[in-house]
């Protein structure tokens, strides 16, 4: 009997409590989110708490009171972040700013970042933004229009001017004429991925390091003659890497660089679809020719990145002699060749070969960059934050510190700009002082991707890379011309939604057929049929959308 009564009361109470909890949560949810996107446009200029009155370029920013800013940190697994890292202490010492980190794993960083911003829970400062990634947030007002505040950032303005990057910065502007991210400035920018060649083998077959794709073909033929079992050229990134850096010299875009699929035709003054222009066809024909003669390893054009080690394996077993990679890949190849017992080899990183459109490489690039969530704009320390970020991202002092550490303690710098890492310290990532006891990256937090490396002068960039890489930079700058960037064609919110649905099937068709044509699964005689298929997928409608946006931009912004 007692049992029964207790049960009855418990049950009634239970139901009520649940209802209350549900209602309460709903209210809380609605409440949290309603307050979200509004407020804070106007009063930014009042948000001067903690900022410096006389902050100028090339001076150290020091907040007039201790400040706390939140920062999104991407956690690379082999360089795990800790609060005790010296880099954060150093920042705090010089600027009086403490950084609260929110960590996200590298493996799914983009998704988590998206989630945090969408849920309205992201920290104020979001680093590691590449140009284009801010578009979806810009369109919906989730991030700050930083162009409004450029005047608070003297270092940024100084170096944009000095390194002639103003036009590129203007290309970041969205439909409303404002830009929403601040890019990392690079005095020199070279293609990250290019051809890596076995220089010793090239010399062995009596050839020279190629400067054009046609010359490369000759080299490959000679190598194949000597090593008939090999398919000397390989990509290793599903073909996306090689097509990317090749496309520029053929007068088109492809692979990773395909972007939204449009190519600006200077003569016609409008955007055309990259996959249907002459340059694209020539490029496909070129690679198909290589496949026909057994000069290209077809698997490397289809195996995913994870299987990129298959190319390394083939290189080590000497079935492949020329492959795509970045400067880090050189190291990988070297280790594999050593393990396979190959001696007297040299893996060289060469400038991307030229083609029918000339000795052209990708346009100059920004690197990394940051954006600020709307929440930051409402902070009373907003101006201080801008000044702080200007110092952190663009001042030479901060750049040196983020890369090399503390002058006098971890490194020394001579007047002519030579950086030397002190002997007790190592930077194993770049093979500097491998015997050093303390690694400035792993143990102290310097030279870390989220912050360092975004803005670099040429001198700084060359200071920590191997001489071979410096040679590579030189050869690209001397012998190659970057293509001009396309004029902007930013889409508004509604157009963005439409564009993604239109562009994806088109891109899928292009990806599938590019591979089919190259591998020979589809004869090149069907090229025109392929173009018709694309047109049947509303290609013209898509181009109209982009060109419309481009014309609108030109009208509004001269």
């Amino acid at each position: 009997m007692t049992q029964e009564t207790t049960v009855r009361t418990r049950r009634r109470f239970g139901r009520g409590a649940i209802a209350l909890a549900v209602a309460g949560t709903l209210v809380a949810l609605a409440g949290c989110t309603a307050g979200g996107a509004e407020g804070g446009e106007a009063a930014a200029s009042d948000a001067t708490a903690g900022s410096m009155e006389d902050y100028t370029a090339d001076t150290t920013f020091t907040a007039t009171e201790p400040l706390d800013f939140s920062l999104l940190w991407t956690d690379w697994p082999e360089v795990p972040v800790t609060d005790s890292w010296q880099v954060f202490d150093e920042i705090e010492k010089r600027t009086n700013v403490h950084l609260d980190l929110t960590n996200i794993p590298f493996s799914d960083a983009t998704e988590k970042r998206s989630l945090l911003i969408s849920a309205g829970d992201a920290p104020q400062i979001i680093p590691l933004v590449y140009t284009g990634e801010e578009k979806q947030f810009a369109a919906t007002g989730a991030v700050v229009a930083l162009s409004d505040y450029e005047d608070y950032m003297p270092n940024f303005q100084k170096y944009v001017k000095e390194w002639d990057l103003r036009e590129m910065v203007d290309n970041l502007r969205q439909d409303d004429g404002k830009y929403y991210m601040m890019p990392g400035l690079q005095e020199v920018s070279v293609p990250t991925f290019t051809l890596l060649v076995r220089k010793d083998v090239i010399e062995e077959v009596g050839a020279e390091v190629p400067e054009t794709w046609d010359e490369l073909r000759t080299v490959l033929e000679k190598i194949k003659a000597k090593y008939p079992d090999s398919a000397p050229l390989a990509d290793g990134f599903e073909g996306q890497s090689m097509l990317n850096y090749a496309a520029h010299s053929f007068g088109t875009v492809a692979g990773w660089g395909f972007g939204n699929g449009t190519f600006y035709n200077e003569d016609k003054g409008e955007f055309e679809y990259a996959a249907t222009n002459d340059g694209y066809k020539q490029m496909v024909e070129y690679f198909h020719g290589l496949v026909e003669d057994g000069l290209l390893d077809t698997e490397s054009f289809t195996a995913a990145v994870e299987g990129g080690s298959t190319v390394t394996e083939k290189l080590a077993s000497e079935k492949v002699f020329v492959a795509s990679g970045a400067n880090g890949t050189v190291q990988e190849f070297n280790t594999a060749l050593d393990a396979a017992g190959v001696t007297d080899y040299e893996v060289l990183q060469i400038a991307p070969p030229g083609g029918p459109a000339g000795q052209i490489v990708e346009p100059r690039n920004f690197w990394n960059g940051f954006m600020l969530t709307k929440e930051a704009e409402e902070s009373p320390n907003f101006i201080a934050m801008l000044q702080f970020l200007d110092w952190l991202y663009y001042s030479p002092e901060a750049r040196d510190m983020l890369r090399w550490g503390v002058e006098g303690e971890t490194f020394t710098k001579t007047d002519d700009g030579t950086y030397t890492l002190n002997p007790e310290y190592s930077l194993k990532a770049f093979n500097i002082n491998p015997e050093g006891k303390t690694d400035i990256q792993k143990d102290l937090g310097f030279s870390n991707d989220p912050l360092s490396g975004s803005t670099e002068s040429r001198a700084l960039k060359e200071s920590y890379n191997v001489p071979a890489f410096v040679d590579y930079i030189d050869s690209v700058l001397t012998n190659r011309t970057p293509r001009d960037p396309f004029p902007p064609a930013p889409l508004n919110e509604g157009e963005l939604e439409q564009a993604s649905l239109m562009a994806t099937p088109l891109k899928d068709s292009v990806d599938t057929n590019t591979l089919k044509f190259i591998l020979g699964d589809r004869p090149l005689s069907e090229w025109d049929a392929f173009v018709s298929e694309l047109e049947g997928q509303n290609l013209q409608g898509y181009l109209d959308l982009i060109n419309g946006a481009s014309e609108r931009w030109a009208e509004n912004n001269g």
Partner: protein
Amino acid sequence: MILDPVKTEERESARTETIVTGRPRRTRPGGLPQESKGYRVYLGFNAVALVVISAVTLYPFATLIAQSFSSSGAIKAGLVNLLPVGFNLDTYHAVTNDQHFWRSYGNTVMYTVVGTLVAMVLTTLLAYVMSKEHLRGRNVLIGIAVFTMFFNGGIIPNYVLISSLELKNTMWAVILPGAMSVFNLLVMKSFFENLPRELEEAARIDGLGWWGIFWRIAMPLSKPVIATMTLFYSVQFWNDWFSAFLYLDQTDLYPLSLHLRNLIAGATTTTAESAAAVGTTSAAIKDNVKAVTMVLAIIPILCVYPFVQRHFVSGVMLGAVKG
């Protein structure tokens, strides 16, 4: 004893027969001298097939273990097959000396133990209640559970919920979202439904209420399914990286699964910039670190199974019914 829900004649008679004749003789099924030759041939085939299946399954693991003892260059060069090349224990040393590894290991153990406990309590209780066919509103309960198998709020609403409940960066954020699997719930319910009713009726006569019946009669009889579900939940919590990924942003709290995913999947990228990031810093993830971490992650869960298996024995003395 599990009874077939379809009450065919022969089943009923067999059961009654057993009850009448008392405790069944404990003999191995089919373990009598009258095995046919055909059966023995079949047994032979059976064994061979199983060996082949095992070998095929074991091959990639053997390679993985070999890789964990090999040098990074050898792995990249594709030289490691079943045996290590460039045998070294360096990576094992490096990994086990890394306190992040041990911290995440400890986190995982904690999340798994607590999580399994919570999940088992919730699931068992609800499954038992749902298995009572006479219960009024039973179908409503089942409907409530099944509906959630198909409809969920999506990542952002779940995130906002956990965030509003202030559970972010706590152990509960990793445990609670996965604390009830409707799949497990329904399987358990199925098992409970097939427990012999006579035992419960007998217990009622003895004066036990539902709780008593549940605790003293149903649970002991359900060792196989409880053991199985404990195993399932443990594995689920052990391997779950997604909840940690969503709701934790202190690396101190990361479980091993997330740490591992960061390590392994971090090298699989589909965008140019991320690929560039991996390519430019020559601190590329070492294949042997991946292999070692994976091996170390799998070992504990493999040890759990033998413990669980001991409970896969029917634990019923049918004589209880008579008494």
